[in-house]
């Protein structure tokens, strides 16, 4: 047992949980989670994972904090406007929990850097806000055999699934990204800030479940919720034999950067 007195107190509410205990907490402390996008989803996920004591948190984001982010990206504060999001987030994480090592990648996740960044992590959280990135993360994680949590939010709705190697991937369900500008992104359609919080914390919970091996992940299932009616439902998914990525005759063998809606390039 290597927990210090301080850690025992700090994580006592985890340790008390029958399923976690000291052993589970040590797993958390030794784990490495990559969060791609430090925005609406990445922010709450990062806060909870930091508090939980995830040993290493990687943050990927090339953007700086904009005032329009503050309505939902709760890890950034007003004085951070203009600061790199990864730096702003890192500062908060350090304050929450000095146990956590934060690695920052002040760049966007692209076909070029994807596999290099991924390789050191146990679990990946997709906290991005656009389809090209989501497909890229899916493809990269499937190829690198990294488990990840997909999440998406729009207006009052959210959806999420967890992928682990050998199970349904995002492309098994959605073949390819919609054409640029065909589907509105948050910056055009709007989103209720709290939805981002709901979904981001679900993703954090999935990451912790994966790390500690507790419970059943959202694998081969997609959780969809609508906050207006507060209806939650899960849809069963199956690994799709004709998936262009993980199917029997895969067509995608290298990573692609899809064209991104023009406005997305500016606003995160």
């Amino acid at each position: 047992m290597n927990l210090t007195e301080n850690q025992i107190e700090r994580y006592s509410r985890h340790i008390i949980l029958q399923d976690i205990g000291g052993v589970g907490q040590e797993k958390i402390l030794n784990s490495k989670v990559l969060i791609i996008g430090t925005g609406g989803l990445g922010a709450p996920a990062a806060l909870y994972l930091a508090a939980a004591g995830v040993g290493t948190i990687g943050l990927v984001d090339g953007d700086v904090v904009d005032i329009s982010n503050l309505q939902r990206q709760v890890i950034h504060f007003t004085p951070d406007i203009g600061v790199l999001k990864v730096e702003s987030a890192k500062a908060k994480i350090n304050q929450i929990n000095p146990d956590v090592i934060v690695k920052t990648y002040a760049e966007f996740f692209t076909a070029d850097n994807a596999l290099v960044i991924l390789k050191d992590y146990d679990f990946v959280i997709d906290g991005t806000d656009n389809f090209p990135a989501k497909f890229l993360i899916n493809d990269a994680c499937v190829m690198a055999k990294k488990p990840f949590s997909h999440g998406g939010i729009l207006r009052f709705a959210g959806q999420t699934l967890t992928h682990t190697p050998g199970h349904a991937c995002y492309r098994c369900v959605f073949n390819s990204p919609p054409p640029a500008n065909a589907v509105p992104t948050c910056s055009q359609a709007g989103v209720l800030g709290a939805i981002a919080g709901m979904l981001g914390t679900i993703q954090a919970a999935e990451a912790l479940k994966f790390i500690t091996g507790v419970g059943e992940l959202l694998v081969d299932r997609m959780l969809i919720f609508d906050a207006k009616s507060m209806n939650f439902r899960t849809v069963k998914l199956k690994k799709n034999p004709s998936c262009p990525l993980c199917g029997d005759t895969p067509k995608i063998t290298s990573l692609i950067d899809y064209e991104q809606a023009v406005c997305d390039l500016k606003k995160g």
Partner: protein
Amino acid sequence: MLTFYTNDTVLILEQDQLEEDIAEFIKGQIDPIRFKAIRVAHGVYEQRQRDTYMIRIRCAAGGITPRQLKKTAELADAYGSGEVHFTTRQEVQVHDVLIENIMNVIRGLNEVELSSRGGGGNTIRNILTSADSGVDPEDVFDVDPYAIELTTRLINEPDSWNLPRKFKIAFSNNSKDTAYTQATCLGYVAEIRNGQKGFRVYCAGGMGAKPMVGHLLLEWIPDTQAYHVARALKVMFDKNGNRRSKFSNRIKFLWKKLEQDEFVRLFKLEFDPIKDDASLNLVLPDLKNEAKSSNLAKNPAQGDDYELWEKRFVFDQKQAGLKSVKVPLRLGDLLREDADSLCDFLAEMGENNIRCDRAQNMRLRNIPEAYLGNLYHIIKNMKQSLVQYPPFLSNMINCTGAQTCKLGICLPRGLSDAICERLGKSDLRLDEISDFKVNMSGCPNTCGMHHVADLGFFGKIGRKEAEIYPSYNVMAGAHVGQDGLMLYAQRVDEIPSKHVPDFLYDFLSVWIEDKKDYAGNYQKFLDEKGKDLIKTLCEKYRFVPTYEEDPEMFHDWGRDRRMTMDDMGTAECSAGMFDMIDVDKKQIEEMIKTIETVENKKETLYKIIFHSSRMLLVTRGLESKTETQAIELFAKHFVTAGLVNDRFQDVLTLAKLDLKDELLKHQALILDLGQTVVDLYKNMDDSLRFKTEKTEEIPGQNGPVVKDFRGVQCPMNFVKTKLALETLKSGDKLEVLLDNGEPIENVPNSIAQEGHKVLHKNKQAEGHWSVLIEKV
């Protein structure tokens, strides 16, 4: 127009930035720690009073012109305390500046080419020289031009602003070493060899709470290489200094870490490639020590008082017909109106005529003999000075102490006034000991230079039972100058603050009597008689009554209320704490040693427990009002927290319940406790954390593993029980000791809910429970 350094224009941009940062800080948009780093680099320090600052102004070679000083005084009057403070670092400071006025002062200083940039922070600090360099008949040569040009060169190099720690430089004009070159990071002592001007070079000295005497770095260099040495050492320090620790990153610590050979090797690595590059030579300013011709009417003075003044405060210069004059300041403070009258006169005499000295006094130079009368009248009419006293009193040095400094324990300013009062009006022949140095600091940090004093004092916390009172350590035996070998003063004893003036009176009357017999050799006097005298006198004044008997002993000089722990600022520099720890440590060690011979053994055992409990509380920011509370806090924050083994719980409980008779049965354990705490302290690193200490597991060789969780609250007792079980194999047994009440009601149930078997619960005679658990 004469200036003692020139700043780059970049400075103005930096000031704009500072102005923005101040505005943001006021709005709460910059956190205080960040703001501190920004302002300190601009020489702006926070005082003990919130949102009140002092501003430190660079005066290279201690020099400032009448025009500059007058402006500084005007700013001090408009935005500060109305006084200019002369410091031991040969600079001037403006105190009591409210945050919204900081920029007014800084921009006002720009008008006269003065700057506070680099007054603090990790950079080249004010470069000091012997205060009489250039006018001293015993000058080897004038070192001021070197300090002036080196300052301008270094402060305009971008790589000077982010060194691992502050970098102090000093030049002495001869081997008397009045600039204390061996107590500084880099020191040059003027020495001519074969007709060539040059320097002996010392480095890696420094005072502070961990003083170190500097080492000879270079036997001798020609004066043309003065810059090359500074540059090389700066770069070497920049590359190798320790940036992680705030407290052990001065050059002196680097020397200690690397040791001589490696340090010198790394220095040479930087020095050798540049040392012959003549393009780097300093271009020295032509600093003249002369008076300009003036039409000012002469105002001659005569009579006994004038002659006494002249004898005390006027000195011959090496320039015929010119005089240097010491203006004895009270506590280093010069009032605005006094500054005005002095500066108006001095401006008539020239520009190069003011220096700050290391004893917080103002030195005037290049005064034509014919004008001494004018000066006499001005100084005599000063609203605030110590001109009526013998120079001994104005030569005393004191740091600002707890009056403005957050780290201060004592108030040396109050003490200094009290000493003036006590000695100035006494029958002591102080004129016979004008050069005697009494230096006082409010805490171990040496801002008052107690390490280089004939008698030094630094503030400590005195303890009387659970009460604290202001007290000073007494230091003696410093040895400066006489041919290279420097020694710092050593601690001899301690004395309550309130008795220091009487102590000084007693001590000095003996020294003044004996001075002739010892042919003025104070060192010899100290060795043969003085140190014993100090001890005897400290013994005489050691007794401290209780607060009820004499509250005065608990009020420091210059403070009308009693000292409290709250007076000690946050551990920005954690010194001061060590004193408190030391008190308990000494007690423990003493009592352990004498336990077999003491009269009242059970009381002594109890005291060991108490001191052991209290000793390290302060490292956790805890303070105990009573003995019982000390024991409780210790049990919680050290034993329960796992820093100290559980086996001491029993004796702590007995002591807490005041069952002193019982303690006799546990003598060995109690002595062990004392030793354990002392050892733990030895293991403390500089950041006051502990390197080791986890409770040892008690291996269950024959029986079950036993864990003592008495005193551990819910739910931490459950958490710890769970963790203990996790280390066992299925079927292994664990015995835990739990308190009565909530713990025994909850923990076994929670454990059972996790599936483990609670084999039995057993109430112990002492009232706690033993619970035996089998792991599933």
